[in-house]
């Protein structure tokens, strides 16, 4: 498994359950992280995201005020977010297929079903750092590429249309993005 320098990564952890926040913080500190900012609901999570511009967001699903899905949708606002590309790891007790699909369609990067273990969290974090996915923007979606693999023979209704029209390096359509 690849290794990453946790010491320099900044996390925002959003969960309304104080016990679970403490467990996640303990694990992140154990991995070597020093900057772990906690928030207890979606609203304060968004505030923490805006104020601290974390490298990675870890969020619960079910929370007061607005939930982890709504938080994700607010973060994935190109042109209106501090970092719409930030990796978002959803840590939740929901395991049903429709939940996983809903999280994916909101723009969640990784889905981690409780119970939480040090290894499962570690692997998700390493994956978003070492294997970042490109983003896709359509009329109805902005988020990480939902295709985990390419199937050139797929001909179903969800096949993307159109050959490549242009290839550009720019930041015009994402005003706040800084190509440093």
């Amino acid at each position, binding site marked *: 498994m690849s290794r990453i320098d*946790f010491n320099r990564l900044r996390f925002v952890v959003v969960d309304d359950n104080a016990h679970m926040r403490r467990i996640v913080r303990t694990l992140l500190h154990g991995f070597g992280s020093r900057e772990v900012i906690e928030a207890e609901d979606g609203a304060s999570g968004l505030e923490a995201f805006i104020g601290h511009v974390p490298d990675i967001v870890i969020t619960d699903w079910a929370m007061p005020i607005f939930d982890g899905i709504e938080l994700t949708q607010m973060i994935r606002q190109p042109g209106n977010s501090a970092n719409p590309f930030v990796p978002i790891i959803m840590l939740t007790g929901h395991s049903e297929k429709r939940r996983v699909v809903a999280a994916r369609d909101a723009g969640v990067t990784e889905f981690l079903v409780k119970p939480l273990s040090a290894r499962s969290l570690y692997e998700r974090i390493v994956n978003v750092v070492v294997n970042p996915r490109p983003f896709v923007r359509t009329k109805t979606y902005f988020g990480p590429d939902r295709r985990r693999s390419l199937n050139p023979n797929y001909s179903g209704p969800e096949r993307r249309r159109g050959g490549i029209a242009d290839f550009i390096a720019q930041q015009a359509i994402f005003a706040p993005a800084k190509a440093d």
Partner: protein
Amino acid sequence: MAEANSNRLMIRIFGDHEVITPVNKLDKYVVKFVAPGDDPLTRAEAALAALSSEFSDWMTAECDRLDSARDAVKQHGFNERTFDELFHSAHDIKGDAATFGFPLAAAAAESLCRVLEHSPDTNRVPLELIDQHVDAVRAIVRETARPDIAEIATALTSKLRQVSDDFLIHENRHRPDYLEGLMAPPLVPGQ
């Protein structure tokens, strides 16, 4: 075709979508050389083990919260606030019980979550069924040291799940598509 450069945001425009390769700000955190004996996973597991002495009290607090939520439903009936608190407290136990060292309590909490989430009219959920779930969670946690707790908890939660499924099948009998999704196996193995 030009290759994406990690220092510049790259956009490929297709007929109905754009593929964007963001500036990779995290690749600088990938470690090339690892000091011998340095294992962050082992460190984190040790830190979690050190914290585990508090888990029993945490689990008791979660059970107390579930009790209070049940009492609120009995006192005020189901409304948005009482429903949310009962569902969230059961949902937290479902997700956290195994991490806290009480994996057998998770199944009973999950069964209660299913009843609440998938009942078209929560006012039709029998209070007795809620009581049975809440009391089962409490009993499994309280009796966790019993040598036969796994056998007892499995039998108890299997029965709860069966009764709950019978109730949900009846309540959703007019929604066959919904029912099919409800009874589909979860994506996560072993759940």
